[in-house]
């Protein structure tokens, strides 16, 4: 607002001050009430650029010749399987992903099936090797009672190269688990890395 309030005769007086109070208060009340601030009619119309809200999403795709939904029979204590998956952030903002494992069946009880997650900075090779340094996201732990695992932050369009390991505990109690079955469910959740409220003046 560039306008200036000047009292008659170029002097400020108590009367003119109160007049200003009344004028501005009335204007404010009108504005707060949704009315038109009719006294300020000068406008400058500048068209802003298109502002677009972010979108979020993910894709969790089997890879490397393995299928997550494929089971294995006749596991001996200590036997394990790998399942590979690419977790892609299909949204337009960075997202933080979390994996939660849960088990079903007797074999997924405490001391039975175990679960671990590793990542490779590049796609896993077809023979299961990693061209970079394998990062342990979650060390081997029982599926029963497993706590959520942070898969970290993935930038927009970024990919996390995951390797799940499902293992039968090497000391599985045979009187409890022989011939028993179990399965593992993995649920991936993601949230935007930022809560917003950012100054996006620069883009």
């Amino acid at each position, binding site marked *: 607002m560039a306008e200036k309030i000047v009292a008659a005769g170029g002097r400020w007086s108590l009367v003119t001050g109160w007049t200003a109070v009344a004028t501005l208060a009335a204007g404010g009340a009108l504005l707060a009430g949704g009315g038109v601030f009719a006294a300020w009619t000068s406008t400058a119309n500048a068209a802003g650029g298109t502002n677009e809200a972010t979108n979020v999403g993910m894709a969790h795709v089997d890879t490397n010749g393995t299928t997550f939904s*494929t089971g294995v*029979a006749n596991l001996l204590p200590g036997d394990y399987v790998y399942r590979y998956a690419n977790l892609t952030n299909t949204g337009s903002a960075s997202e933080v992903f979390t994996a939660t494992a849960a088990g079903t069946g007797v074999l997924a009880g405490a001391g039975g099936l175990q679960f671990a997650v590793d990542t490779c900075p590049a796609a896993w090779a077809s023979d299961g090797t990693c061209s970079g340094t394998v990062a342990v996201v979650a060390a081997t732990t029982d599926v029963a009672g497993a706590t959520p695992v942070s898969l970290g932050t993935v930038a927009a369009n970024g990919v996390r190269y995951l390797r799940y390991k499902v293992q039968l505990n*090497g000391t599985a109690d045979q009187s409890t688990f022989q011939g028993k079955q179990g399965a593992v469910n993995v649920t991936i959740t*993601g949230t935007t890395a930022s809560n917003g409220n950012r100054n996006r003046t620069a883009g």
Partner: protein
Amino acid sequence: MTAAITPPRRRPGTRPGGGAGRRLAAVAATLLAVPLAPAPAHAAPWVVPKASRDSGTFTMASTSYAFGGSDPASFSLPLPVALLSTTGYASLRNTGSTAARFSGGVDATGVPSAARVTLVRCAVAFSGGACASGQATLVNSAALSGDPVVAYGNGSTLAANQTIHLKITVTALAVLSGTVTLLPLTGTLPTGGANRTAG
């Protein structure tokens, strides 16, 4: 706003009433500005729809076995009366899909307390009481009253579908009678640790 406003005392060099007017104008501007200020944002992160994956079914191996004879779960050797030594033959096969170790007790019913048992294993069928190959003594003249436990693998596992042949000999200083039974077995799987990604 109901507070009474008294004219301010004029400072030297100032115009009458000018300072008060400016202060009031400032108050008014503040009152005007407050409702225009944006409400504090309570933003929350956006949640991505979940991806849920179910694994296939994992199954732990199990052990199974069968004694040759009418009862695959156990083997019984009746002891005729009026003999001091009796010998019987049995076979045991690992019917599971994986190697395993088997063990089980030897039970005696109606047998003199001083009776003893010897159990010999052979890789091939006994011929005329002799083992042509792979003989090992599993129980060596143990007192039957103690229900000795037999480790049929003799410290090693029996491969899947492997059959071993057994010779049981019961002796006593007194006349024998009753029954000796090889009880149902406990099977133990070996430690694996193999990469089963391919199945």
